[in-house]
């Protein structure tokens, strides 16, 4: 493929998309499924941005290289791997954790992280529409009159991330009976989300709907982005990987937001590969990881694998190995209570998923086939418990 685009959407739950069987439609994303491979069992390497993005952009795990806040020089960003081959690399986003200050600007010919721009005081990031405008401006200058260098474009939308303050028109699409104004929605963020208060089920459901309204907003932004690609006449020459760094919790395991739990609502993320030449859609139930994205991008460009990348190319599907998926993070909530950093890990293989939480030295095991909501811990009763423990144990406190 001439160009590859990576579109990451912060905080997007898999079940928020219509094509994944979520209750609410996402009309545009649902409409492109006939040109996509859709992975149903894609796992993020972590439950929040800092823990997830080393997988997505460097094909390495969060707790490797000594857990620095700033990206280790030893990690190779996909932009660095591509930049040396003559492919133009451009990144556009507005997530402070991925800003130049934290070292994510390596290898990009163009890198926009919004840190020099003014942002809204309450919703402190540049919205998807603005990101699209910047991408459109860059793209048209890059394409110029006709002949242009192949490019790798990464864009990341923040709009779903709390505070949930969607526009009226999107709230109406989800539930027109919600009559909150911006001030009231922001109050919910301060009083309920920030306090992790799930005592009132009705309020948590209300938050879920506001979140859903943001998802509709993002669906429109993705539609607009595809329109830009079409207008620039590059859609037909571009493969597009669409995924998310993590989901969001709405009371499924006693909390809201995303602090470091490892359940499916946070780590089982959407993953789509759009290929313009594809004749019909494909659904893959392979167990895969977002760690596999950088090798997949190399594959799409027809380039050789890079040693530093720990994942495997997702394409061609029949060549993908049967393997498990790991994820790791610092349990922010537990660490705060204990006064020191506590790790949390998971490992998924076949239908089993094991979670280790250092905060209270606890193990959990779930059978995702019979218990997809991960409510019934079978660590004491399952024959699978021991072998799964043995696979995860070497990864705990290994650096």
């Amino acid at each position, binding site marked *: 493929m001439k160009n590859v685009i990576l579109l990451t959407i912060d905080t997007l739950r898999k079940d928020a998309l219509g094509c994944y069987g979520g209750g609410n439609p996402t009309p545009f994303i649902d409409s492109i499924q006939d040109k996509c491979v859709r992975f149903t069992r894609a796992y993020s390497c972590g439950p929040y941005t800092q823990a997830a993005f080393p997988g997505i952009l460097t094909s390495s795990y969060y707790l490797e290289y000594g857990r620095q806040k700033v990206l280790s020089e030893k990690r190779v960003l996909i932009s660095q791997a591509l930049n040396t081959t003559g492919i133009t690399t451009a990144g556009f986003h507005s997530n*402070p954790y991925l800003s*130049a*200050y934290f070292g994510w600007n390596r290898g990009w010919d163009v890198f*926009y992280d919004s840190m020099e721009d003014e942002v809204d005081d309450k919703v*402190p990031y540049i919205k998807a529409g603005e990101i699209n405008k910047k991408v459109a*401006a860059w793209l048209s200058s890059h394409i110029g009159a006709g002949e242009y260098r192949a490019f790798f474009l990464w864009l990341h939308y923040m709009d779903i991330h*709390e*505070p949930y303050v969607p526009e009226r028109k999107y709230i109406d699409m989800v539930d027109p009976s919600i009559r909150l104004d911006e001030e009231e929605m922001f109050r919910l963020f301060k009083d309920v989300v920030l306090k992790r208060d799930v005592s009132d089920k009705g309020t948590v459901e209300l938050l879920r709907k506001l979140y859903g309204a943001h998802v509709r907003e993002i669906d429109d932004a993705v539609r607009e982005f595809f329109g830009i690609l079409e207008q620039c006449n590059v859609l037909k020459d571009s493969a597009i990987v669409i995924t998310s760094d993590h989901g969001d919790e709405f009371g499924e395991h006693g909390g809201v937001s995303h602090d470091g739990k490892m359940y499916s609502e946070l780590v089982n993320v959407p993953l789509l590969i759009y290929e313009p030449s594809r004749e019909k859609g494909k659904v893959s139930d392979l167990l895969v990881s977002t760690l596999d994205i950088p090798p997949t991008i190399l594959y799409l460009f027809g380039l050789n694998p890079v040693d530093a990348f720990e994942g495997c190319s997702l394409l061609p599907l029949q060549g993908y190995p049967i393997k498990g998926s790991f994820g790791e993070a610092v349990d922010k909530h537990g660490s705060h209570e204990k006064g020191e950093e506590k790790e949390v890990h998971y490992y998924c293989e076949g239908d089993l998923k094991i979670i280790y939480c250092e905060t209270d030295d606890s193990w959990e095991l779930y059978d995702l086939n019979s218990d997809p909501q991960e409510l019934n811990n079978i660590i004491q009763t399952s024959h699978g418990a021991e072998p799964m423990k043995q696979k995860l144990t070497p990864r705990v406190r290994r650096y």
Partner: protein
Amino acid sequence: MAIDKEISEKRKRQCAKLVDMSKDIVRKAFDRFKPEELGVTWTGGKDSGLTLWIIREVCLEKGIPIPKTMIIGEGDEFEEIEEFVERYSKEWVVPLELCRNDDVLEAASHTLGATVKVKDLNERNQAELKRIAFSEEEFPFEAESEAGNHLMKTVVFNQWVERHNLKGVFQGLRWDEHPARFNDEYFEKKEAAHLIPEHTRIRPILHFTEKDEWDTYAAFNIPHCTLYEQGYRSLGAKTTSLISIEGVPAWKQDLENTEERAGRRQDKEKAMERLRKLGYM
């Protein structure tokens, strides 16, 4: 005071061209707005200094005074900058106004790091803190803290624009200063919002790189602050600006392959502030 750098005739002509482009922007601004509707922001640094020098050239050619100029007093200034600004505001006849948030300075007893209690501030400052959703009862007096930065810089700037009914404000931003600037325009209209007056930002030197800038300083013998000779490349508040290479003048450093603003504490503060608003930290 002159910069000890040899500039070839060819390079001089190139710099003159860049200056001409900037003069055109300034002339366009004077076509679009009346002189009394225009203002200049000056910091004593190299970007706003070059901008002011170019505006002055256009004013000399038109036979009009330099528009109202402001400098922000954030309570953490380099003496070298103060001396430089004092000297050239006189020499160039700059109608300079020192703008400060005296209410905050008093609440902090003019002491860096002192704790400012929100309830001790006047109504406008309290309203401004509300506007940025700052809900704590106190904050440390530092220009780079979230509340400090807003009250000491943004508010002071907005009030100055409002006070003089300015329609256009000259700024010394450059495209190459930061990758995020690549899309900025020479004229950008800012819409009015709560406590923010409508105005147009005018950026005559957007197209200068850092190297172009120092070559132009040398070619035209434009005065600069002595701190750049000590090795500073980017100047902000005194306690948060860092020397890039001790004793090596800015124009002798490797401008093209190293970061102009590496290690500025502002970048960290800004990231932290946004993360806090997203519910982290």
